[in-house]
């Protein structure tokens, strides 16, 4: 297999050029997929036979929750790449992805609370899944806080990478121990883990929304990374030329 593309990613300039080409495609597909998925989910999907229309928040809740978890895993992967291959872009990715993941976790928690009120009659219950998400949010806060506390860019990225790796080893342990804690203290009064089999009209918008959220994540991440790359490379000639070009275009 040809690994040239991977090694090329070590060059910030090359990354800036290639991501500039990807960005329009990702942004357009994110907008399209989210609009199509939302319209299908909100207007065309049939209401749930028990929950009525209140289930429709699933089309935001589930994609956000997916993304919250996979962002943390991608943080750790980027951290490993940054530590092993000393790739600057991976360091940038760790720090720029963390706030997006934290926001996705917040969205998942808030939509979960909104959904929980009509369904379970409470904004918050100490259910295993909810608690695991809350802990995930705290893990994100830790990474963001550590990134802000260390002023040197390079060592702050490395420290965040190590914390992300330690966290990702811990996540399965946290998940299982929280599951276990819940069964220990309160017997399952309801299960959200076992979803009823969905009809196609309900499931398809969910799939579209999930892919749309992933595209949105990728687009926002690339935008944030491009800005950070420009900031880090502000001494180089290509970065200065690029900034001058951007300013000239907006003026």
């Amino acid at each position, binding site marked *: 297999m040809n690994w040239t593309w991977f090694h090329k990613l070590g060059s910030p300039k090359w990354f800036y050029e290639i991501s500039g080409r990807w960005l329009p495609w990702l942004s357009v597909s994110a907008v399209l997929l989210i609009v199509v998925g939302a319209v299908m989910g909100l207007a065309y999907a049939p209401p749930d036979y028990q929950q009525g229309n209140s289930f429709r928040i699933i089309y935001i809740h589930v994609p956000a929750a997916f993304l919250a978890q996979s962002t943390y895993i991608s943080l750790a992967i980027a951290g490993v790449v940054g530590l092993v291959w000393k790739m600057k872009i991976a360091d940038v990715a760790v720090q720029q992805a963390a706030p997006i993941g934290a926001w996705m976790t917040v969205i998942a928690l808030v939509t979960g609370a909104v959904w929980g009120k009509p369904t379970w009659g409470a904004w918050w219950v100490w259910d295993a899944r909810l608690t695991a998400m809350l*802990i995930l949010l705290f893990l994100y806060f*830790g990474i963001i806080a*550590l990134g802000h506390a260390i002023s040197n860019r390079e060592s702050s990225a490395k420290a965040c990478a190590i914390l992300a790796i*330690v966290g990702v*080893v811990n996540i399965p342990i*946290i998940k299982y121990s*929280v599951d276990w804690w819940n069964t*220990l203290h309160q017997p399952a009064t309801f299960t959200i883990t076992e979803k009823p089999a969905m009809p196609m009209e309900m499931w398809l918008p969910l799939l579209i929304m999930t892919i749309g959220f992933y595209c949105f994540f990728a687009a926002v991440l690339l935008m944030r990374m491009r800005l950070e790359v420009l900031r880090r490379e502000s001494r180089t000639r290509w970065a200065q030329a690029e900034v001058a070009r951007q300013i000239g275009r907006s003026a």
Partner: protein
Amino acid sequence: MSNVFTLMLLRETRLMFRRPAELVNPLVFFAIVIALFPLAVGPESQLLQTLSPGLLWVAALLAVLLSLDGLFRSDFEDGSLEQWVVSPHPLVVLVLAKVLAHWLYCGLALVMLSPLLALMLGMPLDRIPTLLLSLLLGTPVLSLLGAVGAALTVGLKRGGILLALLILPLYIPVLILGSGVIQAALQGLPTTGYLLWMASLTMLTVTLAPFAIAAGLRISVGE
């Protein structure tokens, strides 16, 4: 290699006993936190007994966390940390000795104090061995995971609150298992399974955490 390990342990012991106040502080903190709870929730013995596993674990966890803030600080300030990093001995071994010393003089001391506080909270005498075992297996995990955070924050001016933010979420599995064991013992349920889980968690942390601590120290020193 084992020689370096013993030397390091002896050095830490000597340093620790030259400042006995630092040895006592976490213990006093532990006792005070436990004393706060009956004042806050009321003196009913039934309630206190039900809460006691969780109270003891949370208080022990906070005491360890507070003592961790200074774990690498003085070594960082006087330059010993740099010497460890550039020395030919593996940093992982040095770090393991350092953390072991911390556990001996903080974790183990907390374990020894805990029966007294547990009895004051109304825990029956025959449940004390389970409590001791759960703290004995759990406190090394607290020391090791906390050392990862201490290594990452040692170069920072005010690392204390940040350390708590980084480390507390990682402590959750130990907290759940540790207080779960005692809870089960109080209800007369078998505890072997929980204790084995805790032991495997301890082994996992002893194996992996020193590498993360060493990597964190390299970053902090390199800055």
